[in-house]
């Protein structure tokens, strides 16, 4: 259809205005522009608007994608979505532009004599299948592996798990969500026996106080942060930013409290100490619904290959727990945490006030932590002691960073120990999976193999020979990166990478497969609040690009698993989803039917009797509660949640005379994770073109460093030079530096440490020792 240049420019101008209005609404909740201007905004024009969840973070905003002449040309927030209520952040607004970068991968590439040669998809898939069969024949089933991500759609992860765990019979299935929320999973499992938040985003509309635990929501979850700011305008809620660095979140918060790295463990215990000391414990709730336990301490940090740890929980009395907390009075914790006793008491008083509803929110701060499971447990302790949980506005809430970290990695179970329902170690769970997958139960190995860091270590050692990496960029994100980059280049390793753009990870591939992205195929994502959202295929993928789901099915068929991978190309997503739902039947985890997901902006599991469940474990809202009480923590056999006694322990590598600074890494609002998509969106790339190192202004002054000067960072793993940022976006505390990881030309993970939480096996990207000097 012809579109005049005038009309097109006019339309684009209106879109530019709308982008700005959206950005303003994020920064200034309640902002109003002249109504005549709003009336000029495009009402759709020739566009066909279709609903989808956003491609980027784990918030899972509902968006409407404008399709014109077979191309996605515009995005707006879906006003029908309860997640974002029509809002979008700057990344979401530009998300369709990520599909149209000039260097999209459109053909399969096979490395021959050191050079990539274009080949047909058929030939590339033949090669992958034959290489996998040959590797299994020569080295056994555990020599092949797949590494996916929280950006896998639900069908992608499901067929990956079915192929590797059910058909091949190896548990070498992992996903990058191990690097971002494994501690949240083990936190939930140890405290409640079942994964994922009990509450939902609607808690924001009910809470009086928000405590953000190491969570820069203004940049990482801007739409939810905007909802909180809106509540502050309407109801005067309080926002407390509890962090190691001053950020945009700190500046917008009512109070910013900075703690020294790793001491959040001590502060959380001090809050519990105060709650008990001041008589703020909800005794009847604790007596009815909680047990108290302790586990093994001094677990180590997983720095050595083949490190193993199994906790040994032991029941303790309330009195024993109270005695343990004597070491964590605010006055004692003040000395190690850098926070005044007054500020600790200030936080505790909000948790303890029976008239205040309170939300704790966190993401990478507590999760990327060598005691990540513990700090998750400790935040739950605060909510359990006060009984402020599973009711509207009283909500400990761990957020995620990827669109389907929950939906695919946690719910489908694309981790070495997991199955779609339950774990490989459990006979009944293996039997259920085998029945649905139509494989002999003996196929499913009862022993987990490698978590992510150990999987790459196994590749380095040669225990793994073949790795298929889909929709993730580990050659930017692995900690202590050089070891794992070198591992991929070793003789006898075969690496397949499925992606949409060239990245440092495609650089190490033997075969590169071009993938279809987001609305170029059909699929579903699951967000942080247990909401499963469907999207249809809206446009065609470029060239020979193919969905990751169909790539896996094609290879599975070539390997002889036609019976299990019976799906038809036209209907395979529906067939896979319906098969997947069978794993979650029952009131605790039932998934909504596909027709429901197609008709509305998602549904929250457990989806029972045609209704989403907003608050789990609360009999008023959750049909799975069956103990006749107000609350039922049915993830545990006795229906009780666990308050864990977990001490403060130091980080594995702390600053010393040689490496006197803390190094913290993280993200920026403009770029999503490794930037492979957002750096191809001109406006976002221009706004944040390269990496940098943030310094505290006093440290910078002492070293005579100004913004833009080169700074050399050195750790025990390596060194690199970055431009300085002083008093720019974020301000680290004295003797701390911060570096974002989005820039593939400044690979900060060459410097980070591969220590991890012994329980969750999630690495700590927030703490290691570094030397900083003017270069």
């Amino acid at each position, binding site marked *: 259809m012809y579109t005049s*240049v005038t009309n097109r*420019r006019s339309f*684009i*101008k209106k879109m*530019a205005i709308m982008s*700005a209005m959206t*950005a*303003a609404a994020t920064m200034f909740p309640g*902002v109003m522009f*002249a109504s005549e201007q709003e009336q000029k905004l495009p009402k759709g024009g020739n566009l066909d608007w279709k609903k989808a969840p956003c491609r980027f973070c784990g918030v899972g905003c509902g968006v409407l994608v404008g399709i014109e002449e077979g191309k996605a040309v515009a995005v707006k927030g879906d006003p029908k979505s309860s997640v974002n209520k029509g809002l979008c952040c700057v990344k979401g607004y530009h998300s369709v532009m990520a599909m149209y970068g000039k260097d999209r991968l459109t053909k399969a590439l096979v490395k021959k004599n050191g050079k990539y040669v274009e080949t047909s998809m058929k030939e590339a898939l033949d090669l992958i299948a034959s290489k996998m069969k040959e590797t299994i024949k020569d080295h056994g089933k555990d020599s092949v592996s797949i590494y996916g991500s929280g950006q896998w759609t639900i069908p992608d992860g499901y067929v990956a798990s079915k192929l590797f765990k059910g058909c091949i019979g190896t548990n070498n299935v992992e996903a990058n969500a191990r690097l971002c929320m494994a501690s949240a999973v083990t936190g939930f499992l140890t405290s409640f026996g079942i994964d994922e938040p009990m509450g939902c985003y609607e808690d924001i509309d009910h809470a009086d106080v928000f405590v953000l635990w190491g969570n820069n929501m203004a940049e990482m979850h801007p739409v939810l942060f905007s909802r909180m700011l809106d509540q502050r305008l309407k109801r005067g809620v309080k926002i407390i930013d509890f962090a190691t660095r001053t950020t945009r979140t700190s500046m917008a918060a009512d109070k910013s409290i900075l703690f020294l790295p790793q001491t959040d463990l001590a502060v959380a215990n001090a809050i519990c100490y105060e709650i008990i000391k001041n008589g703020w414990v909800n005794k009847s709730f604790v007596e009815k619904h909680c047990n108290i336990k302790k586990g093994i301490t001094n677990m180590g940090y997983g720095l050595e290959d083949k490190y193993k740890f199994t906790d040994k929980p032991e029941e303790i009395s309330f009195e024993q727990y109270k005695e343990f907390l004597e070491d964590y009075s605010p006055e004692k914790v003040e000395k190690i945490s850098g926070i005044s006793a007054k500020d600790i008491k200030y936080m505790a008083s909000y948790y303890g006030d029976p008239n205040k509803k309170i939300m704790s929110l966190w993401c990478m701060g507590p999760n990327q932590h060598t005691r990540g499971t513990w700090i998750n447990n400790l935040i739950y302790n605060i909510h359990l002691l006060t009984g402020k949980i599973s009711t509207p506005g009283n909500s400990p809430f761990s957020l995620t960073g990827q669109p389907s970290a929950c939906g695919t990695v946690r719910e489908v179970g694309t981790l070495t120990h997991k199955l779609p329902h339950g774990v490989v170690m459990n006979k009944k769970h293996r039997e259920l999976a085998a029945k649905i997958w139509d494989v002999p139960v003996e196929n499913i190995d009862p022993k987990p193999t490698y978590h992510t860091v150990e999987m790459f270590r196994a590749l380095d050692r040669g225990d793994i020979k073949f790795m298929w990496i889909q929709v993730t960029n580990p050659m930017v994100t692995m900690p202590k990166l050089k070891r794992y980059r070198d591992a991929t280049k070793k003789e006898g390793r075969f690496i397949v990478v499925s992606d949409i753009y060239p990245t440092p990870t495609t650089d190490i591939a033997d075969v590169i497969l071009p993938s279809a992205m987001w609305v170029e195929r059909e699929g579903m994502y699951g967000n942080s609040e247990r909401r499963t959202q469907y999207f249809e295929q809206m446009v065609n993928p470029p060239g020979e690009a193919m969905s990751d789901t169909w790539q896996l099915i094609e290879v599975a068929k070539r390997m002889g698993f036609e019976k299990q991978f019976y799906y038809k190309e036209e209907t395979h997503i529906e067939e896979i989803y319906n098969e997947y739902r069978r794993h979650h039947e029952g009131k605790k985890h039932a998934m909504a039917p596909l027709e429901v997901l197609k008709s509305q902006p998602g549904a929250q599991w457990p989806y029972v009797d045609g209704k989403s469940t907003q608050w789990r474990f609360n009999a008023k809202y959750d049909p799975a509660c069956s103990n006749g009480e107000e609350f039922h923590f049915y993830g545990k056999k006795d229906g009780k949640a666990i308050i864990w006694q977990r001490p403060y322990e130091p980080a594995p590598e702390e600053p010393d005379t040689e490496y006197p600074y803390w190094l913290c890494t993280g993200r920026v609002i403009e770029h999503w994770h490794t930037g492979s998509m957002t750096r191809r969106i001109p406006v976002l790339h221009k706004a944040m073109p390269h990496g940098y190192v943030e310094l505290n202004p006093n440290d910078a002054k002492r070293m005579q460093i100004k913004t833009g000067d080169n700074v050399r960072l050195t750790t025990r793993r390596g060194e690199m030079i970055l431009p300085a940022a002083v008093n720019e976006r974020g301000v680290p505390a004295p003797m701390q530096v911060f570096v974002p990881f989005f820039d593939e030309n400044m690979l900060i993970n060459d410097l980070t440490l591969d220590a991890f939480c012994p329980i969750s096996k999630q690495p700590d990207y927030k703490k290691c020792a570094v030397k900083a000097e003017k270069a």
Partner: protein
Amino acid sequence: MPIKSYLAHPHNGQKETLIQELSALKNCEVIPAENKEVLIVVTDTDSKAEEDIIKEQLEAITSLKLLAMVSGFNTPIKN
């Protein structure tokens, strides 16, 4: 043919001055917020050279505290 939108933040008490100064520029549309100290600015130019000129003019405005680009579209002529 770049089209760009920005959020413009005025210095304290200078919102009206900023509106007037921005409105005086060619190829520049201004949409002030009714209830907040922020303005939307959209520039619509025919070439990179014109774009550079208007950027310089914007940066020279003294009542402007901060100019943050929100979106940039480069529209090719479509026959």
